[in-house]
């Protein structure tokens, strides 16, 4: 039983990591939203499994939130926003998919190297869970950096947050996990709302320095 519970937890966390990699090279926004919804479902299953093996029924609430909010509500809302903004057909140029994947692999290696050797007192299951979670977090960060579209950046952030919830549910007996997952849902709702209200399509940052200067009110005659 001990070994089996270990394996299932691994399987689910590993599934999330694989889905993170899938997210990295999606070039169509709708496909990416679907992959994200799958990751949220995997997260929900993973948290629910933690609830069973840790005998912590309150984690089921977190699992339910992950399933309903991130698996269904937010992807649906984002699908509608994407259609309203008219970017659902757009194909986003992913900067160097191969390179991004390589960097992603490096990040996974980094998180394993960081998490596994430390804390001999912490059980190996928790450490491996944390290594998975950190990898998902770092891949989310990578996605936020390499993408230019506001919606894809949000998805990157939410995937990062999936990693955080995975980490929090794996930390044995951590109080307030449910509250944190609620707080995160509120945060995400705000971001989605913000994108919709302000109709942010592109990140304003660009390599064109003159555009930056215009927005920063710093263009003008040289001093």
């Amino acid at each position: 039983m001990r070994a089996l519970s270990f394996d299932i937890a691994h399987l689910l966390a590993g599934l999330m990591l694989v889905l993170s990699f899938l997210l990295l090279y999606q070039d169509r926004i709708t496909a990416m939203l679907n992959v994200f919804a799958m990751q949220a479902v995997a997260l929900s299953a993973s948290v629910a499994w933690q609830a069973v093996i840790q005998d912590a029924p309150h984690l089921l609430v977190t699992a339910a939130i992950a399933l309903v909010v991130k698996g269904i509500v937010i992807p649906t809302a984002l699908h509608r926003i994407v259609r309203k903004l008219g970017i659902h057909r757009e194909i986003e140029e992913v900067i160097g998919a191969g390179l991004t994947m390589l960097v992603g692999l490096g990040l996974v290696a980094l998180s394993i190297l960081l998490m596994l050797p430390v804390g001999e007192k912490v059980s190996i299951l928790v450490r491996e869970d944390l290594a998975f979670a950190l990898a998902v977090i770092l891949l989310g960060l990578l996605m936020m950096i390499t993408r230019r579209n506001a919606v894809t950046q949000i998805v990157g952030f939410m995937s990062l947050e999936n990693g955080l919830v995975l980490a929090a549910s794996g930390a044995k007996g951590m109080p307030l996990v449910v509250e944190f997952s609620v707080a995160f849902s509120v945060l995400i709702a705000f971001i989605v709302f913000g994108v919709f209200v302000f109709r942010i399509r592109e990140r304003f940052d660009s390599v064109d320095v003159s555009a930056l200067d215009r927005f920063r009110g710093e263009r003008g005659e040289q001093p």
Partner: protein
Amino acid sequence: MSAALFAILWIPAVAVAVLAFVESYRLGAALNVLAAGLTFVAGLSMLFAPQYRTDILIVDDFNVYLVTLTTFVAFTSSIFSASYIGHELEIGRLTPKSLRFYHALYQAMIGAMNVALVANNVGLLWVGLEVATLTTVMMVGIYRTPAAVEAAWKYFILGSVGIALAFFGTILVYLVSQEVVGEGLQAMAWDVMLQNSAKFDPKLLSLAFVFLLVGYGTKVGLAPFHAWLPDAHAEGPTPISAVLSGLLLNVALYALLRFKMMLAANPDTIDVGQVLIVLGLVSLIFAAFMLYRRRDIKRMFAYSSIEHMGIMAFAFGMGGPLANFAGLLHMTMHSLTKSAIFFAVGHIAQVKGTQRIADIKGLSVTHPVLAVGLGLGVVAIAGLPPFGVFMSEFMLVSSSFARQPLLAVVLVFGLLVAFGALILRMQDVLFGEPSGPIGGVKASYVPLFVHLAIVLVAGLWLPEPVVQWFRSVAAQLG
């Protein structure tokens, strides 16, 4: 729970609920000042409240003074804000509807900062900082110009990444702690962790701190995590720039220091001091040079805030009674001075109708009172005697010369570079050929000059209880 503690948490909460429904902006502004004032009275009375702890909240020497400072600056900024928004409404940059939103958010921010300051549970500390960040994000974007939306978005994304990494760090800290303390709420209580930290696994604790450092360091605005800070200061309403620089950066630094204390109590962890010294000096030097190229007056003072947060990080990184004392004093003085400068800059940008330094000239002729306010503020922040900032910088420089002469040379170099930039840029603004509108101002000068007076008095003479407080906290910080 003492009445004062209850009040600083619940007055802002009630005010949020009330202000969200107040239609009239005048009434809203008055209520905002009233609520902030009451919170300040409660914060002031915290100084006399006994120490207190539960697994959730804590009142000790370290946070009680910061609560007083925070509620004070929040109060004076609300007075400034009341006169500032009237003008913004006239020129149509804000609407009565967005002001309702603004006032409710302002109180939410004060409440969240108070929660973060008195939290004993490290998770609650994180929640407080997260909420405070979110409210300021929304206030930064309130003008809805492309620049403001860009600034808010950037702040949002970078702030969220900071939030996320800090949360991962918090989970790790809990994991280390529950191995020793046992599962449950007490394993997240900061004071319990501090008592037991010598028994914690040093490697995992160090790793946790790295995440916390990057996470909360983003909010402190330390280079290289500072990219959101200048935009957020420049594009939002000026009262928000004042509280961002004066308060939120301090609260984030405070969070970092709480964790630093935990690591200092465990001899086998990484040397946090050295990390802070490096980050501090990098921020100081970087920001000092960036000051020269600024053309936007609010952006310029935002870089100055990065510079000063760097000085504080350096001071706490050096550690020891004297440097910690200097760091705490600098936190207070910078908070008061920088918010005073933003009060002056806010009115100046309003009367001149621009934030471009090149278009603001000869204030000493056109608006002498504002010019005096800004001039004194700049003199103070540049670190000239007899103001309080000089005191703290002098203490820091002399103590570091005694211990690490090479680092002290770098520190002094950074200070001088920043000093030169401020004087160079502000000369034309204050004494150049007058240009632009010369119309009158409906300004409230009281907050500006009250802050400057406190900074001046602190530079000349620090009351004994304050010195005692700084000493005891400096000793705690190790």
